[in-house]
C-alpha cells in the first residue's frame, strides 16, 4: 500500500513538474528584513528582464531561462545557504547583491567553477582576471566610484582642489571602508584634505558625525552608506543646511528610497551611477506588454523605472548578453557554468548592442577580457530633482583614474594570489 502511495505521489509530482530548463539563473534576493526596500526593486528588475526574454523571445538562443529565487534577507549566512542549496543543476551565475556574501562565496564559487557577477560591489581587486578566474565586477567597482566622485569635484573646480577638504561619511564595515585607500591615494595626487567619519551600524544615529561636519565645514561630503544610514545622513545634512549639491553618495546611496524621507529639502543631492535612469526606453514598453500586463511581474509591478529596478534589470541584461556570448563561442544553446564564464570574459557592450536591446545609452560601453574582469571603469553623476521626484543624469559617463586604480588593483590582487597560492592566468 505504502509503495503504491509513494508511486502515485512520484508519478503526480513528475507529471506536474515543468520540463527542466537548461539555463538556470539564481536570484539571491532580499525581500524581507531591514534592507528589503532596496532588495525588492533590484530583484524585480532582475527577474522581470529574464521573464521578458522567456515570454517575448522564448528564452535565450532557444533555451528557456529557469530563474530560481532564494531569499537571503541580506544576511551572509543565509546567502551562503542559498548558494549551497541552489548551486546544483548547472547554475550559470550568481549575483549575491551583498559584499559580505560575495566575500564568502569567492572561494566557494572558485572551487565549484561557478561565475560570480558582483556589479558595483564586492571585492574590488577581483577586477584582476589573472587572479580571480570566476569573479567579475564589471562595469564599475567601488574604487572607480571613489575616483568618479573626486573627478566630479575636480571638474567643478577647474581641475584644482588642492585647497579643498573632502569628508568621507562611511558605514563602519568592510564595505564602507572600501574607498578609503583610493581617496587617500587621490588626495596625495590632487592635494585635498581628507576627513574620515565612520558611522556605526546600522546608522540611525549620526549626530556626532554631522556636528563635526558643521564645525569643520568640509567643502564636499562623499557618502558610502546603505539602508537606513543613507536616509539619516541626508536628513542630517538637510538639518545642518549642508549644500546638497556638494554631497555625493556612492551608487548604493542613490535611490529614491534614500532621498524621499527628507522631502523637498533633499533636492540637489548627488549620487554616482554606472547606468542610466528613468523608464524612457523601448525595453520598458516590452516589459509592460509581456511581463506586467501578462501578470508575470516579479513583485507588485510598482518599482519599474526606479533606480534600483533599473540596476537589477541592467544586471540581468548583462547576464543575458554573457549567455549569448557563451552560446556563440561554444556553439551550443545549453551552456554550462564554465562556458558562461567564457561568455562573461568575452563580453563586449557597445552602444549598438544596447540600442538593439531597447536600451540606448543605458550604460557605458565596456569590454571584458581575461586580464580585466571589471570593465573600463566608466560612471556618471546623477542628481535628485525633488520636484520631479526622480534622479537625473547630469554628466556623461567618464572614466576613473586608471593610473592610480590599476596600481591598487594589481597590488591588492597580487597579495591575495600570494596568500592563497593562486597561479596567475592569461600569461
Amino acid at each position, binding site marked *: 500500500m505504502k509503495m503504491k502511495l509513494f508511486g502515485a505521489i512520484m508519478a503526480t509530482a513528475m507529471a506536474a513538474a515543468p520540463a527542466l530548463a537548461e539555463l538556470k539563473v539564481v536570484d539571491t534576493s532580499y*525581500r524581507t528584513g531591514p534592507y528589503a526596500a532596496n532588495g525588492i526593486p533590484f530583484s524585480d528588475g532582475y527577474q522581470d528582464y529574464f521573464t521578458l526574454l522567456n515570454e517575448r523571445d522564448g528564452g535565450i538562443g532557444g533555451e528557456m531561462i529557469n530563474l530560481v529565487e532564494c531569499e537571503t534577507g541580506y544576511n551572509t549566512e543565509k546567502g551562503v545557504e542559498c548558494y549551497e542549496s541552489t548551486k546544483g543543476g548547472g547554475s550559470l551565475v550568481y549575483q549575491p547583491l551583498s559584499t559580505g556574501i560575495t566575500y564568502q562565496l569567492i572561494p566557494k564559487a572558485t572551487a565549484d567553477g561557478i561565475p560570480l557577477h558582483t556589479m558595483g560591489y564586492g571585492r574590488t581587486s577581483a577586477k584582476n582576471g589573472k587572479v580571480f578566474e570566476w569573479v567579475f565586477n564589471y562595469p564599475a567597482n567601488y574604487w572607480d566610484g571613489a575616483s568618479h566622485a573626486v573627478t566630479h569635484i575636480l571638474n567643478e573646480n577647474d581641475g584644482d582642489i588642492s585647497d579643498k577638504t573632502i569628508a568621507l561619511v562611511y558605514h563602519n564595515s568592510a564595505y564602507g571602508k572600501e574607498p578609503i585607500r583610493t581617496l587617500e591615494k587621490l588626495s596625495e595626487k590632487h592635494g585635498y584634505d581628507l576627513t574620515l567619519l565612520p558611522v556605526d551600524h546600522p546608522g540611525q544615529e549620526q549626530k556626532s558625525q554631522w556636528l563635526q561636519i558643521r564645525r569643520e565645514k568640509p567643502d564636499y561630503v562623499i557618502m558610502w552608506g546603505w539602508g537606513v544610514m543613507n536616509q539619516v545622513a541626508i536628513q542630517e545634512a538637510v538639518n545642518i543646511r549642508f549644500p546638497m549639491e556638494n554631497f555625493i553618495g556612492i551608487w548604493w546611496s542613490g535611490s529614491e528610497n534614500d532621498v524621499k524621507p527628507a522631502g523637498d529639502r533633499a533636492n540637489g543631492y548627488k549620487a554616482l551611477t554606472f547606468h542610466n535612469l528613468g523608464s524612457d526606453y523601448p525595453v520598458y514598453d516590452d516589459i509592460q506588454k509581456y511581463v506586467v500586463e501578462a501578470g508575470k511581474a516579479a513583485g507588485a509591478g510598482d518599482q519599474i523605472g526606479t533606480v534600483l529596478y533599473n540596476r537589477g534589470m541592467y544586471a540581468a541584461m548583462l547576464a543575458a548578453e554573457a549567455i549569448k556570448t557563451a552560446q556563440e563561442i561554444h556553439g551550443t544553446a545549453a551552456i554550462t557554468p564554465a562556458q558562461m564564464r567564457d561568455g562573461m570574459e568575452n563580453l563586449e557592450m557597445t552602444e549598438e548592442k544596447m540600442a538593439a536591446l531597447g536600451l540606448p545609452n543605458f550604460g557605458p560601453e565596456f569590454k571584458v577580457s581575461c586580464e580585466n574582469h571589471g570593465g573600463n571603469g566608466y560612471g556618471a553623476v546623477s542628481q535628485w530633482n525633488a520636484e520631479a521626484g526622480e534622479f537625473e543624469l547630469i554628466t556623461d559617463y567618464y572614466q576613473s583614474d586608471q593610473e592610480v586604480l590599476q596600481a591598487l588593483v594589481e597590488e591588492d590582487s597580487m597579495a591575495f594570489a600570494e596568500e592563497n597560492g593562486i597561479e596567475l592566468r592569461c600569461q
Partner: protein
Amino acid sequence: MPEQFIWGMEVFANGLMAGVLYALVALGFVLIYKASGIFNFSQGVMALFAALTLVGIMEGQVPFSHLINAVFGTEIHHFGWHVPALAAILLTMVVMVLLAWLVNYFIFRHLVNQEPIILFMATIGLAYFLEGFGDIMWGADIKKLDVGLPQGINGTIDEVTYNLFGYGFFIDNLDLWATFIAILLVVGLVLFAQYSKHGRAMRAVADDHQAALSVGISLNFIWVMVWSLAGFVALVAGIMWGTKSGVQFSLSLIALKALPVLMLGGFTSIPGAIVGGLLIGVGEKLFEFAIGGMIGGATENWFAYVLALIFLVFRPQGLFGEKIIERV
C-alpha cells in the same frame, strides 16, 4: 572661552537629546518588565509596527493590499483618502490595544508562572511574527512620516548661543519636541503607576502574579493594559525615529540602543530609563567627540555597552533598579 569647550557644550546638549530618544525606546521595555517580569524582545518591532500602521492609516493605504492583489488579481492599493495625523494616531492606538489583547490572549495567558526564559523566548517569536506581519500588512517600502513635527535647526537656540559664545549651537527641533513629549510621558506614567488603582495593581502583579490573583486582581486585564501602554510608548518612539529616517524595517533595530540604557537605569524604573538614556546619550557623544577621533571613530555603540557593563559590575540592578535580595 576655548573653542573646544564651546563645541563640547554643543555635543553635550545633543547627547541629552539623543538620550531622550533612547529612553523613549527603553521605557516600553521597563513597563512590560515592571508588570510581568518579561523582557520584551519585540519592543523595537512594536515601534516599527506602530509607525507602519500610523503611516498606513494616514495615507489611506489598504492593509494586506499586496496579498489581496496577488490572490484575487485586483489592483487595489489605497482607499483614496488621507487621515489627519491626530486621528491617525488615535486609530493606531486602537490597533495597538487590539494587538496587546491578541498577544495576551494567544500567548501570555498560557504562560502564567512559566520561567522568565520561556517568556523571553515567546517575545522573540512575537518579534519575528510581528515583523513579517507588518511587512505583509503594509509593505516593505520606506515611507515618509510627517505628523507635523518641525525638523531642522532651532533658530532661537542658534541665535542665543551665537550671541553668547560666538558660535551657534545646533539643536534639532525634532529632538526638542521628543524631549517635551518624553517628559510628559514619564510624568504621566509615574503618576499612573504610583497613584492610580490600576497602576498599583500593575505593581502588585509585578511583585507576585499569584499573590495578585489571590486578592482579586485580573492578571489578564493588567497584562493587556501594560502591553497597551508599551504599545503607546512604542508608537511615540516610532513617530520620533520614523520622522528622522522614514518608516522602514530597520526601525526595529532601535531596540539595540535601549539595552545599555536598561542595564544602566535598571529594568524596573521609569525614571531610571530616562536617566540611563541621558547618561548613555551624553556619555557616548562626549566620548566620540573627545576621544573617538584618536581611535578611529564610530565608538558610540561600543561606549554605550562598555559603560553599561561597568555599571553591571558595580551595581547589577542598575542605578534605579530594585535591589536583588535572595534569602535562603
